[in-house]
């Protein structure tokens, strides 16, 4: 009996905890949006300077690594699609395969995973160490809402930068594929790119961008909420950081799958 009830009990506890966690994250989201939109009316304005600083850290600083990865993914897709489509003598379809899979899927996914690793973890670490050293309490007692000061700027910056980075990654990845595939197809890279442009419809891009918005919310909420719930000193901060990254990536991939399923039926 015990052997059966104990795993059940811990499963139940985990379920309760994750529901509580989702409830907490939902509240964080509402509060952040509230402060961003109406904070100025209650003396808690969102500071543009903080948003810009976050945008720099999340977006601009990520450009080199996003470029590198997107280029690599583009070349990789070029290789795979040429190899696969050659068997059917359908090499010329590489252009459309790369264009659609990058804009609908890989651009957003790769960017989100990267940003989760860079900025989601940074958020969790920063807010976590601030909780541990009572800086969050200090903000609250100074009449500065921690959610407004710490979470809202990150959320807004993420909502702006992740879609931008995604479009950027789309472009770079297609460029990478063009560089690799155009010799194999006996076309110039310019012709390859022109053909890509003529094949893509706005819906393809929007699919990636819509995903990027969802991923932005996921990354921020997970980073911020694990940060705020840190207890147990420096070790706790380390654990929270790891947890934020792992959780974000899991949620991103699952959300991506769900999204793709419903958008491509």
């Amino acid at each position: 009996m015990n052997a059966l009830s104990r795993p059940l009990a811990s499963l139940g506890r985990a379920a309760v905890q994750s529901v509580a966690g989702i409830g907490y994250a939902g509240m964080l989201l509402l509060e952040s949006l509230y402060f961003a939109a109406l904070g100025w009316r209650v003396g808690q304005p969102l500071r543009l300077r903080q948003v810009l600083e976050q945008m720099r850290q999340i977006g601009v600083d990520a450009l080199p690594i996003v470029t590198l990865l997107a280029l690599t993914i583009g070349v990789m897709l070029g290789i795979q699609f040429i190899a696969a489509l050659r068997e059917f003598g359908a090499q010329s379809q590489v252009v459309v395969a790369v264009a659609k899979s990058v804009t609908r899927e890989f651009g957003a996914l790769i960017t989100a995973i990267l940003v989760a690793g860079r900025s989601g973890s940074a958020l969790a670490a920063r807010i976590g160490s601030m909780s541990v050293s009572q800086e969050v309490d200090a903000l609250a007692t100074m009449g500065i809402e921690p959610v407004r000061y710490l979470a809202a700027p990150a959320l807004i910056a993420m909502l702006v930068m992740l879609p931008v980075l995604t479009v950027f990654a789309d472009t770079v990845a297609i460029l990478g594929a063009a560089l690799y595939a155009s010799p194999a197809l006996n076309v110039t890279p310019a012709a390859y790119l022109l053909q890509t442009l003529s094949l893509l419809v706005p819906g393809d891009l929007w699919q990636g961008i819509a995903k990027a918005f969802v991923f932005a919310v996921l990354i921020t909420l997970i980073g911020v909420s694990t940060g705020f719930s840190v207890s147990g000193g420096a070790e706790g901060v380390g654990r929270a950081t790891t947890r934020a990254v792992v959780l974000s990536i899991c949620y991103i991939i699952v959300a991506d799958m769900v999204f793709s399923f419903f958008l491509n039926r």
Partner: protein
Amino acid sequence: MNTRVQQDATGAGQPSALGPQPLIEVEKLEAWYGRRRILNGIDFRVDAGEIRVIMGGSGSGKSTLLRHLLGLQKPRSGTVRLLGVDLGRASEREMLALRRQIGVSFQGGALLTSLSVGDNVALPLREHTDLDENTIRIMSRLKLEVVNLGGFQDLMPSQLSGGMIKRAALARAIVMDPKLLFFDEPSAGLDPVVSAELDELILRLRDALRMTIVVVTHELESAFKIADTITVLDQGDILMTGTVDAVRRADHERIQDLLNRRPREIAVDADAYLRRLTEEQAA
């Protein structure tokens, strides 16, 4: 630029018909962590202009009490009223107005590590006033001078010593000229000379700036030096509140134990311990 400081919306500080209003009024405050009661329904009040020291052994509930006074934790039952505002019932707007009149210096300083010392001190002014940048800079520099840190505004918190961090935190706590100042463990982790300096500083704040100050500490020496009145907390109960002399003379056994640094007799209830262990196993 106009230099309007947001209006005090709490109505506190106005003389009431019933004589001076207590700045802090706590009634039947109970605090729990899970199934453990930490504060057993305590009552106390702090009047304007005094330095109140809350004293007690480790684990007596001092920090828990402080968190409730600051509104960082909600009481299980009972009320906390600061400057006439009931923390349990205050709207967000009232809480904000209240917090502008309260300064807190946390045990570890709690300076924001991403901001310079000067920006830390200026933060409340930047967030809560319409003052222009120049005025803000001058005001925060003045407050840094009050705590003998003039000229250190450009350093980062990580470049300060423990005593300097405490003083910078104090400067930030008083930058809005609060009516009420809370100070958690001013002398913890400091050498005697530095901690004596901080004591002097606290006395000066009361005399020069007419602040009401609540200090939480377990340092007897510093408590006796700065306190107007002392509240002795033990295991979630208030044993007594009185002047320094009254506390010194009190013929309460636990108080004398505390004063003479005699450890509490450690009584282990083996049965209860076993029961707890088995309960935790079952849980």
